[in-house]
């Protein structure tokens, strides 16, 4: 009993995000003309998985009490790169995928190096590197174009056994291969520690710099997985400035929705993924209820505000006003 209480307290943000998503998704499915079919789930998964990857990337940086405003641009840059490289024979395609992932990792590592060793504020440093990444993307693809290995793309956006959406499986696999080991490693612990209190972490002999560097680098890697999926969906590369910025901002919204504290040190990528899924479901909800598309952004904003406020309900129960500020 006592044990469960501590576990529940630690996972509250994540559980709340899952609950919000489940409720929204149920409303969506129950009102969908086709109902709960593999195709509907596949479409939903494919729509949400891009933001889920980018939000996961953002989580890693936010945990260290930083923020990555270049994340959407890494996503675009790797999309443009993939539209040149992820082509041809299976070997060439595999090589292309590896190069794209390495490019993402490198972008993240650059951010990390500037923030940690250059001691610049993350917000400013990543605005600058984001502009650089966008510039490179534009050089790669001045006009939308290119192509991708369509067999791979169709496989990744299709269904396993005709039921399970492949994109959701890949997302789960990435969680298992990247997030779980990270969060349970010494360096992952260091990232949380640095985000929660960097002075205490330093005094405790935590490897702060390596931890943060790893977090930023892995964020770049995760964004590039998102970039690959974008290529799989669109079959092209496009340096779309507005889209890159939108992904950056939505990733922050998804992270907050997922119970990750922007002050650092608290939250999980799994929460952020469900935050991203919930965020995407907002758009779908408006679709099934046949809203005029003109109203979409406004309603999306209102629903987002309500969802984020749910996390603040705990404040109404506070009896000691000093706890408002903790």
């Amino acid at each position, binding site marked *: 009993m006592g044990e469960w209480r501590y576990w529940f307290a630690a996972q509250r943000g994540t559980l709340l995000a899952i609950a919000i998503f489940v409720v929204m998704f149920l409303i969506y499915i129950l009102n969908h003309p086709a109902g709960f079919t593999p195709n509907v789930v596949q479409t939903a998964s494919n729509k949400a998985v891009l933001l889920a990857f980018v939000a996961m990337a953002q989580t890693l940086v936010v945990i260290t009490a930083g923020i990555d405003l270049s994340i959407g641009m890494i996503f675009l840059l790797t999309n443009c790169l993939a539209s040149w490289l992820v082509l041809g024979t299976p070997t060439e395609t595999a090589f292309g995928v590896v190069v794209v992932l390495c490019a993402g990792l490198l972008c993240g590592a650059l951010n990390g190096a500037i923030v940690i060793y250059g001691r610049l504020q993350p917000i400013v440093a990543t605005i600058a590197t984001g502009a650089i990444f966008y510039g490179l993307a534009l050089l790669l693809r001045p006009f939308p174009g290119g192509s991708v290995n369509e067999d791979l793309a169709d496989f990744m956006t299709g269904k396993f056994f005709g039921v399970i959406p492949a994109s959701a499986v890949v997302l789960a696999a990435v969680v298992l291969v990247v997030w779980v080991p990270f969060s349970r490693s010494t360096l992952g612990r260091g990232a949380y520690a640095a985000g929660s209190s960097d002075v205490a972490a330093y005094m405790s002999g935590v490897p702060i710099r390596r931890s943060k560097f790893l977090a930023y680098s892995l964020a770049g890697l995760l964004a590039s997985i998102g970039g690959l999926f974008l290529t799989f969906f669109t079959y092209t590369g496009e340096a779309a400035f507005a889209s890159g910025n939108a992904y950056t901002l939505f990733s922050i919204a998804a992270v907050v929705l997922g119970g990750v504290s922007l002050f650092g*040190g608290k939250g999980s990528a799994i929460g952020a993924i469900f935050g991203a899924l919930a965020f995407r479901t907002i758009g779908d909800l408006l679709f099934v209820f046949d809203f005029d598309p003109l109203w979409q952004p406004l309603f999306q904003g209102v629903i987002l505000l309500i969802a984020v406020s749910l996390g603040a309900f705990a404040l109404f129960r506070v009896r*000691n006003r000093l706890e408002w500020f903790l």
Partner: protein
Amino acid sequence: MSVQTFFRMEGISKRYGGVRALENASLDVSAGRIHAILGENGAGKSTLIKVMAGVVAPDEGRMTLDGKEISFGSPAAANDAGIVCVFQELSLIPDLSVADNIAISNPPTRFGMIDRAAQRRIAEEALRRAGAEDVHPLALVKDLPLSRRQMVEIAKALARKPRILILDEATSALTASDVAKVFAVLKRLRSEGLALLYISHRMNEIAELADDCSVFRNGRHVATYAAGSKTDNEVVELMIGREYSSVFPPKPVRTDSAAPPLLECRHLTWTDRLNDISMTIRAGEVVGLGGLDGQGQRELLLAFFGVLRGLKGEILVEGKPMSISSPAAARDGRIGMALIPEDRKTEGLMLPMTVRENLSFASLDHLSRGGVIDRKLEERKIEEMVRLLAIKTAGLDIPVGSLSGGNQQKVVIAKWLMRGPRIILLNDPTRGIDVGTKQEIYQLLRKLSDAGAAILFYSTDYDELIGCCDRVLVLYDGAVKRELVGDEINEHALIASALNIGDGQSVSAMEAAHG
């Protein structure tokens, strides 16, 4: 007596900007001994320890461990050499669990991932060794009260298997029963051959624990002597370098007045922390709050100051019922209340901001006209306060965080005195500050009460309650257990009522623990 010195510091100097924090300091550390370091705040004790623990690099001097010269680039390097420090500023990470914190510097891993079961075992073992079995390893550090956090901090240090364990004011927030446990642990460690460095402003703790004492003053090492070879007065004279007169100002003789009490509460109840408390304070009176830590003293002060929601009962000021809904309302002219908080670093000061800004924060409404701050008036008020409290600072425009602990505390007090409050609530205001500053604060309190202020004063230090207060209310489990007046206020009565017991045997056990 075989004394093996295995760690030695010689000729250590360190300056911060223009200020010499340490000058040609030396220290020998021996296995199996408890070595107390004494000195006022700003005497260089903290810097000395930071040098040992690898937090700051000295400008000059050398350190040897087992005869080999060493230097530390980081706290981690010092830890690896077996030097572990329990810092006064807690080094715990608030958002991580107790077990995570205890194992933070070297967590057990399996396949490159942290082995949570093994970590849990290490944490439980360390908590048991520190005598803190009541702390759950999965609790988040930020949810623990200060005294529990300090126990976790000690457990964390023990988990690193140190050769030299440094305790810097490590017992300042502990309850008397915790202190007893920690002392038993420290004595066991000494018998196991550890070297312990113990820094405390509590003389009775040092008398009980220490084998050797070293005194520092103005960054210099003044004297080292075997514990017990000097009287308390001699030690204090070494520390402050001047004659030591009576610490506590005389208490005035009380005359009962017919005026209604300045502050009164009736049947104050809040959740399970405050339980039907009724009390009064008259103008010119210093009333103490005693009892073990965490018996509702802090909540009572917060209740008066308008911080608690859902409070039942009545608060009266000058006999008139008041509803105080926020600190802003409490400090308002009609009520004129001030609260000197427990944790000056988070609740009292904005550390990176300047001394000037911090001093005027609580009185901006008095200092401004139409929303614009009157610089001349501000300047005058600040000067007055700096003079009144004798705040030692290199200037008004330096960050308040760079002042010594005692001077920081003076800034917190000054910022509230600037409003000229009639009711002053203090939450353990002398914790972790030096003898000289303490004495100044006692005198200030008496001066304020003589000028007609009503003072409610919570302290974990029994000597303070005895020396300063006209009356003491002892709290137990959120209720007033006993009221002590005048000569009734003595250590025996305070401890007996704090423990809510009557029999003499346990009392003397507690007295032994407390010194």
